């Protein structure tokens, strides 16, 4: 398998000046403080993967993206993306990547969106046929044609974000970084973005998404990386994550044939909700078959249902459990 991103033990610190409290004169002498934004983070992303990066505010997500896009250089560790050192070989590397910062635009505010896209057509060296073909494809997902000739400053925030996304994707980059891409996007546009990322996966193109929106990750990614306080806590595929999350068995029964065995099953469950002849059991994925077999032999089953938690809930529970240790 081709590796598109390989980062080994990367660390990055920032120096900040902190104002001192306690009087006017103390405030005039700010204190210098070093913050370690990333601590020995390693990761590998294979070609065609879509990886979601999540974490609380200040966990190092955006710093990671800036390092991987060559905007800043690591204090320590090595990065190789598409065969390039992003910082040292930035001018060659960035031809092959697309980056969208949800909160930073680079569109002409006075001019229609189309004219900003025209600038990027030239920046990425696309001929007119390639430009129109790519724009047609992106329009299927982001529907920008209806407002293509409107001045950017007259667009709604969501339209502007879609315009920004199109400007970043115009050259069909092999590697795409989306930093908070769906800020300001409505539900339909967010779903379209997820569809586009899935489309990229089908084309063997790699995408890295930094977001707080777990739904977007659930809809579009096959792997999740959780950062916390600059460290990588989780790096796991969503399917593996789903296997590790317990399942809910909902059971309605008429009579118990083997009371002691029945009570033993309930006692071994992770949690039990019981009301008359209606029981909800939380059992580990590995124990699922064994528990179902035991239940059907211990009682007269009227209805048995196994509920899989939604991927969104799986991610949420997984992150919560991991952070709690």
């Amino acid at each position, binding site marked *: 398998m081709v590796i598109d991103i390989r980062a080994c033990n990367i660390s990055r610190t*920032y*120096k900040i000046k902190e104002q001192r409290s306690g009087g006017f004169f103390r405030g005039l002498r700010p204190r210098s403080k070093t913050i370690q934004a990333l601590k020995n983070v390693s990761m590998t992303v294979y070609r065609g993967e879509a990886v979601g990066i999540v974490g609380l*505010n*200040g966990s190092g997500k*955006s710093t990671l993206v*800036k390092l991987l*896009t*060559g*905007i*800043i*250089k690591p204090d320590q560790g090595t990065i190789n993306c598409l065969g390039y050192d992003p910082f040292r070989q*930035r*001018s*060659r590397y*960035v*031809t092959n*990547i697309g*980056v969208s*910062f949800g*909160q*930073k*635009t*680079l569109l*002409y505010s*006075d*001019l229609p969106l189309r*004219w900003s896209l*025209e*600038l*990027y057509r*030239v*920046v*990425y*060296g696309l001929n007119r046929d390639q430009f129109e073909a790519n724009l047609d494809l992106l329009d299927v997902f982001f529907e920008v044609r209806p407002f293509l000739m409107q*001045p950017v400053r007259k667009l709604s925030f969501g339209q502007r974000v879609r315009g920004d996304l199109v400007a970043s994707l115009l050259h069909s980059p092999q590697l795409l970084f989306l930093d908070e891409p769906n800020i300001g996007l409505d539900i339909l546009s967010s779903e379209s973005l997820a569809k586009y990322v899935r489309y990229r996966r089908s084309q063997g193109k790699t995408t890295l998404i930094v977001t707080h929106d777990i739904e977007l990750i659930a809809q579009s990614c096959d792997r999740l990386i959780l950062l916390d306080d600059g460290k990588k806590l989780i790096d796991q595929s969503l399917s593996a994550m789903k296997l590790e999350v317990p399942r809910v068995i909902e059971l309605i029964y008429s009579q118990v044939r083997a009371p002691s065995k029945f009570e033993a099953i309930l006692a071994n469950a992770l949690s039990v909700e019981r009301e008359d002849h209606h029981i909800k059991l939380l059992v580990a994925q590995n124990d699922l078959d064994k528990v179902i077999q035991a239940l059907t032999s211990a009682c007269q089953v009227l209805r048995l249902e196994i509920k899989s938690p939604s991927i969104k809930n799986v991610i949420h529970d997984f992150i919560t459990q991991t952070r709690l240790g």
Partner: protein
Amino acid sequence: MRIFLYIWRTISVFWVGIRLNVARMALFQTSTLLGFISNAVHVGFFVLFWDIIFNNIGTVPGWSFGGILIYLGFSELFFAITSAFFGAATRFHALITNGRLDVYLIRPVDPRALVFAMTFRIEYIIRVLPSVLFLFAYGWALNQGLNFIGLITGIILASLAALVLALLQLTGSYLGFWIGSMKAVEEFTQALIVLTQYPTTIMGPWLRAILTFVFPIGYAATEPALLTVSNNSIFPSVLAMSGMLVGWLALSELTWRKGLGQYESYGG
């Protein structure tokens, strides 16, 4: 091969920048029209100022009134070129401190070229052209003769002076990579630009030397005007300007490369 492609792409980006700037001007026609009028008034006041000097104080050593008009033409041209093509240079430090440089660094052209292309304001050139042509024509009529080679060389020197001033502003802005806000660059270069409104020949020898060999102010208007109204050789000026251009280019590039290694963007 790659370097040619890079240069070609940069030139193409400049060309699109100019086209988009013209499109923008079409959207703001009234503003462009008002620009002509305000520039004519501005130039009128300067002509009046020098007229008062010549009529009430006496002569300015080395200058006739016609020569001064040509000097004013170059001064206007220099200011227009600076504002039209390099307006972003003085505020470049803000991109570094507020982290907006990020969005330029992720594109496959030189970030500085993209910043300039996106901030071209050709209207500054267009709005001064009538005034500059009037000043040159009037100065020519009063001066009874112009050195054409000197005029063309003067225009090139004034354009290069604008480029060198931009390099100076950029070099100062890049210090923002280390020390944060560099608003001082704006104030310093503003002070230098004020000096282009007076011929450097009226200044002391040390100041004149500094403004001719270190800072490009002497080449904004004084040297170009002197070349146009006299038969002086163009080579000393071309040589000095070339040296200054290479020096500032090297210093600017060095500071940029070193500074990028210090870039911290901003959180989030």
